[in-house]
């Protein structure tokens, strides 16, 4: 099924991620739409998560003993698709169909269509409480697998996020980690302030890291806690790795024209 080859793994990590970024940009250009900067913001985190932390098997995506990852900020779906296809959950050729009528790859991830996607997200504030339910369910079932969830900082405006944070702490879900993609893209609307302090005051153990530093990401994601859920506040840059898009709100949901495409691809060599 997969067209994954081990050739990509002979390259440096930086080169491997650039290849995935090119894949993302090409898909968005072909489709005429896509949240490219959101995907770039989380790609380093997902890379470390899937390559070095998560226990998942692309050949058995429904194995009950797998770790779970929920992309709560579903608009960054292209980032998740790139990582999943690279792991062999589905062929990279599917990217050519991104957002087409019959494609399994839409603007937001669909768990009923895509192997490896744990939850259908897109409406913000749904993924984290579903991840909390998964973590609670695994505890009930005596399953020692872990649940990771990535939320956006803008998503942290939603009340259901803070409801979930309360529930997770109360039920001592130390099998749950929430990663905040803190790229400050919605500071223009609401200032979240000291997010670490907020999570801590809700009863979570919290660490703040550079969300593009793989060693920091790895150390944070491997952290174990005792009777507390764990929050990783990842300082990220929206559109990371592409100067044209970095922290530029005009690119939030936009496909590049020919000239922009050329410039972006040159930066990703």
């Amino acid at each position, binding site marked *: 099924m997969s067209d994954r080859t081990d050739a990509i793994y002979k390259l440096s990590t930086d080169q491997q991620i650039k290849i995935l970024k090119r894949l993302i940009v090409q898909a968005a250009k072909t489709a005429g739409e896509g949240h490219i900067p959101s995907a770039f913001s989380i790609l380093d985190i997902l890379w470390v998560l899937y390559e070095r932390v998560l226990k998942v098997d692309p050949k058995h995506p429904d194995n*009950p003993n797998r770790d779970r990852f929920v992309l709560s900020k579903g608009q960054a779906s292209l980032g998740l698709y790139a990582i999943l296809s690279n792991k062999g959950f589905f062929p990279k050729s599917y990217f050519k169909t991104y957002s087409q009528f019959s494609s399994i790859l839409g603007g937001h991830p669909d768990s009923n269509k895509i192997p490896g996607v744990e939850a259908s997200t897109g409406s913000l504030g749904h993924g984290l*409480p579903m991840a909390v*339910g998964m973590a609670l*369910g*695994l505890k009930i079932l005596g399953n020692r697998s872990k649940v990771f969830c990535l939320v956006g900082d803008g998503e942290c405006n939603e009340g259901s996020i803070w*409801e979930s944070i309360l529930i997770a702490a109360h039920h001592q879900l130390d099998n749950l980690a929430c990663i905040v993609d803190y790229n400050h893209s919605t500071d223009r609307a609401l200032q979240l302030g000291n997010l670490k302090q907020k999570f801590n005051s809700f009863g979570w153990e919290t660490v703040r890291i550079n969300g593009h530093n793989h060693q920091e990401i790895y150390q944070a994601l491997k952290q174990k806690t005792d009777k507390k859920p764990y929050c990783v506040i990842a300082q990220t840059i929206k559109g990371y790795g592409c100067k044209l898009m970095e922290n530029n709100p005009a690119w939030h949901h936009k496909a590049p024209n020919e000239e922009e495409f050329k410039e972006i691809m040159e930066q990703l060599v």
Partner: protein
Amino acid sequence: MNMRSQFVATVENLLHKDSQLVLLLGDIGVWGFRNAFTQFPQRVFNIGILEQATVSVAAGLAKTGLIPVVHTIAPFLVERAFEQLKDDFGYQQLGGNFVGVGASYDYASLGGTHHCPADVGVLKNIPGMEIVVPGTAAEFDKLFRQAYNNGHPTYFRLSERANLQDNLTKLGRAKLIKRGSKATIIAVGPMLAKVLEASEGLDVSILYYSTVYPFDSSLIRTNCSSGKILLCEPYYEGVLANDIYQACSPQQLIIDSLGVPHHFLTNYGSVEEQDQHIGWTVPNIKRRLKKLISI
């Protein structure tokens, strides 16, 4: 036993029988489920007053193979958490059970914030959502046991009012109570008691629906030769009208609709006073029925 007590008894019994069942209470019914809390501390939770997250948490539980039951007051369960019901259960096609109390104006004296006559009309917009409106405690018990683990999201509308007799049916099946020729009455859930009294001596068919969705279209299609229908629903009036038209098409129909009128009820008092106010009385049902027959 009223429906709420039956809900406790049924779920307690199923908690014993089915280790997949998990109960989430929105800080109501805690005293009623006190034995369940003691016996099943790993599967019975007073999750708190946060309905949106609760419904999504329930979806997460369902994703691990468990069977969630969420219980709280209807407006907070249905209207506040509607998008969670739509996306997390409807769109993802997950099984779960949502048991609401405070149907329409069961909490009459608490005012409009605690009324919920819109629940069925709202939830019918979620494809695949099953909607059960039991008329008695025994009907709830039977329908819940049939539906709770069938892999669909199901809403159970508990009511303070109940019919005098049980009419047990399978999920999704309506029941012919009486056959007549001049008109057909559709009574949904606890509306049946007054409908029976109002139709005494009249040559009409009475169809009883305790499952609203999936809608039993075959029973109305085969019991409506008059083409005249009085639709009696315990929520906002007219929710089933289009389903009836589609079921009977191309037959020409005259449908009169009795239910909660589509405006805010701003008075308090009792359920009976609200009934009087909106015309949910035996004489008024009889008057409307006779008028329909005379057309």
